[in-house]
């Protein structure tokens, strides 16, 4: 009787739940890797694992921003990160033809910060719901990339960019940024304020946290990271073949963060990395089996639904 009680307590304790939220995506990731090895031998070879670590980076960077935005709670969400990346791809391809790389990085970071701040101002000061506000910002960025190129091909990636977005460099950048964001979230004032707002906005407001300012900062960072991942994507595909190339990443970043156990004031980026890895491996499965776009969308939806059924459900009202 006593031992059963203890087991129940263990399962219900908040610490255990938090721990499980972090570990679950990694368990799913390992299971998928093993399944991959069984289906297609050579899946676990160093070369392939390396390519997963490279392909995951753009989504990983976008998920950093998405994690911080989702931690704020209160229906905050950023579905413009993918469009930030698409626009940054076009702008950097255009500027790389005649300007040095550091200037291009500064310009796209400015683009990300500016439109990210617009998201923050719109949701917080104009009180437009975040889903709609960030969607409109995404459309603005899409329109901007068409307007500045006037529909012509903007240019091609240079050697520097390709080197920047190949194996050791790009993964090291992701690792460094991950460590920075984990430290920011757990050790700094900004991070604690983000958790406080997400956990209880009224208490946060009453204890004098500048909620609107912090939301604007978080949205700006999210935009800047989205824009930066656009530069890496340009290094992957060399020519921005169409406008809005990376738009699909926005929703993937949301899914990755939520799979990693992020919700208002709960979870952190370590879990979200697991979510990113799961999505990247799923994508590589579809490529291995050479599944066409339409079936790929269906399978993606079905997988997402199954994962959600396992652990994305509301609590019962009857307690």
């Amino acid at each position, binding site marked *: 009787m006593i031992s059963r009680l203890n087991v129940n307590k263990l399962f219900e304790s908040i610490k255990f739940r938090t721990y499980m939220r972090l570990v679950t995506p990694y368990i799913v990731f390992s299971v998928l890797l093993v399944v991959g090895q069984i289906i297609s031998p050579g899946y676990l070879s160093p070369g392939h694992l390396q390519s997963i670590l490279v392909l995951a980076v753009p989504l990983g960077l976008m998920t950093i921003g998405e994690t911080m935005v989702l931690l704020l709670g209160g*229906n905050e*969400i950023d579905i413009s990160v993918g469009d930030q990346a698409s626009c940054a791809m076009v702008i950097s391809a255009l500027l790389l033809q005649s300007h040095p790389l550091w200037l291009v990085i500064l310009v796209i970071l400015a683009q990300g910060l500016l439109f990210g701040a617009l998201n923050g101002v719109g949701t917080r000061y104009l009180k437009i719901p975040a889903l709609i506000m960030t969607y409109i910002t995404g459309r603005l960025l899409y329109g901007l990339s068409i307007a500045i190129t006037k529909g012509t091909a903007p240019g091609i990636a240079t050697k520097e960019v390709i080197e920047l977005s190949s194996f050791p460099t790009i993964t090291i950048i992701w690792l460094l940024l991950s460590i920075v964001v984990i430290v920011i979230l757990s050790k700094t004032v900004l991070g604690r304020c983000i958790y406080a707002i997400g956990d209880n906005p009224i208490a946060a407001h009453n204890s004098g946290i500048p909620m609107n300012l912090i939301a604007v900062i978080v949205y700006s960072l999210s935009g800047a990271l989205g824009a930066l991942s656009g530069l890496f994507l340009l290094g992957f595909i060399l020519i921005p073949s169409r406008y809005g190339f990376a738009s699909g990443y926005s929703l993937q970043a949301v899914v990755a963060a939520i799979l990693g156990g992020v919700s208002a004031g709960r979870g952190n980026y370590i879990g979200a990395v697991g979510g990113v890895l799961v999505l990247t491996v799923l994508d590589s499965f579809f490529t291995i089996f050479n599944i066409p776009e339409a079936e790929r969308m*269906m399978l993606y939806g079905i997988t997402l639904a199954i994962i959600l059924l396992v652990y994305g459900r509301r609590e019962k009202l009857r307690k």
Partner: protein
Amino acid sequence: MKNTKLQLIKEYINLKIMLTSIGFMLGIIILNVIVNPRTLMYIDSITLLAVPLAFLGLAELIVLVTGEVDMSVGAGLTLANVVSVYAYLYHGIGDYRFILLHLIIGLAVGIVNGIIVGLLRVNSFLGTLATSSIWSGLALVILNKPEGPIPNWYYRLFMDGLWGIPMVIIGLLASLLIWLYFRFNKISLHFYASGSNPYSAFIAGINVNLIKFIAFTLNGLFVGLAALFMTGIIASGDPKIGIPYTLTAILAAIIGGARFTGGVGDGVATICAAIGLTFMRNLIFSLGVPFYQQDLVYSAVVLGLLAVVMYLRGGR
């Protein structure tokens, strides 16, 4: 008895929401006519384009009222459109069943969403995102490119109207009447109660999860109706027609007073917002903005107007 009914009507109409939304619609239409007086000649065909959006806005609204969101209305519309046209082209189903098929597919899509979100208690944003992906993929599997035509009598219906009444008027009246019938029905109170505070609603004896299921079922019915009009307008089956409609529908519902926290929102205002948004596209077009700047200008104008509407209404 009469007195209480009058009170009910007064309580049901939120003047702030109604006025901003009607102002939004009229303002844009008037601006449109000033910029390009010839708009008056095409006013019926532009409004016809707003009918699917109005139905989708209502579909979104009815779910937003219960505190959930549906990211799959555009994909649901696409699926209903594609399946019906496929059935006509390859199986010769071209009589009244052509209309029925739209509604059945719409309902089926809604019921699946309702089971996932309402009964299985999955987070609605992600759950409907998953189904949206499934419907879009399925639509592409069924028809991998736009195909036509649709049955001739159905096409004539949109050209000549039903018994001489243009389809615009039928569509708008239908959306209005269905919404008002729902709103003045007792069950709508359960929807609003579940949205504004699910726990209190549960304590008061409302089966909140069942209400969410019914909300998604009704949502599916509206999606089917939207698809019916969309098929008539484009006169073909297009596996990519619905993609941009999802968030525009949410936008219409938001201008119609809905909030993501649930419990508020008005259908008449949503229909007005849908008409306003459609005319806005036309306005940008007639202002003579260069092609490659249209997206930029359109989203900037939407953002500006949305800010004004939100400011006038006050508070989230």
